[in-house]
């Protein structure tokens, strides 16, 4: 994570130029939103969490010691907020073990085949993510979407590297099984 520019803009914000914070929001908004969305599985909640995280970061920017990068610090806020929110929410038990839809269900007159395929993949991934714990969702997101190594993930989540490896292994197994089953169903469908 390149943080040289971040440091410059943090300095600008601390000198009273609030507009400099726009750069930081613009740069990290997608990853922050994606992390929140993958953990809580809801776009509206994810937007609120990401906004709250930026607000918290802005308010405590003067206490930011630069021991880690701004991104690590921000993602830590997003991760903790998202995990706490999911924990406090009444747990919805997804009794369905298999992805209930087929790829053809996503085909419609309004979107191209490619867009429909993307939509299908996205729904399938979200379904698979709901089958693992909220912490594991965070780990999977940081590892696969943000391509962070276990050391960086550890800095964000506070989970030890060895524990991250174990949890990632378990999450990978479970998600792969769900995705594979859904893929198999589509192959059979077309046959």
């Amino acid at each position, binding site marked *: 994570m390149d943080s040289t520019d971040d440091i410059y803009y943090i300095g600008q914000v601390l000198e009273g130029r609030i507009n400099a914070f726009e750069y930081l929001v613009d740069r990290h908004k*997608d990853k922050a939103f994606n992390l929140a969305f993958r953990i809580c599985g809801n776009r509206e909640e994810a937007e609120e969490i990401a906004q709250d995280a930026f607000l918290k970061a802005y308010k405590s920017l003067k206490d930011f010691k630069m021991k880690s990068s701004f991104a690590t610090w921000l993602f830590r806020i997003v991760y903790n907020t998202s995990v706490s929110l999911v924990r406090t929410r009444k747990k919805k038990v997804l009794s369905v073990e298999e992805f209930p839809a087929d790829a053809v269900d996503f085909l419609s007159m309004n979107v191209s085949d490619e867009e429909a395929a993307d939509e299908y993949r996205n729904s399938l991934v979200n379904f698979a993510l709901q089958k693992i714990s909220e912490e594991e969702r965070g780990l999977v997101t940081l590892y696969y979407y943000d391509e962070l190594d276990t050391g960086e993930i550890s800095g964000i989540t506070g989970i030890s590297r060895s524990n991250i490896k174990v949890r990632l292994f378990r999450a*990978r197994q479970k998600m792969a099984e769900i*995705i594979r089953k859904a893929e198999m169903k589509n192959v059979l469908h077309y046959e």
Partner: protein
Amino acid sequence: MNNKEMNDEKLLRRFLSPERIERAPEGFTTKTLTRIRIETRSLTEHYGFIARNRVPLISAGITAGLILAAILIPSGDNGSIGAEVWKYIRDIEFTLPGINLPKWASYTMIGIFIMGFLDRALSGIFQKRTTSKP
């Protein structure tokens, strides 16, 4: 990694890649900054214009004072405009109407001033503490 693990990894990499991240909704940055502006004040806003620019302001004040002094205050009585102005200022007499206040009134006034000063100082300290906490 055994074969199955490698296949799982490949499969997940196909479905979960950086290109497939869920992007923040349109207008996210503007909304966030508006919220920040509403919910917080700028980190240095509470110092105000004078406090933030005190160094150049003091410097400008001293420079202007020195320039005025050089123009107006004469080195001797040489009949310049400065000398006339200086003479005029020197000759101004202030007269105040005689007010006869009881002795306790002056003590009360001093007391009010001290209390007022303490009130301002304490409110300044507590206000600073409240705003500095995130």
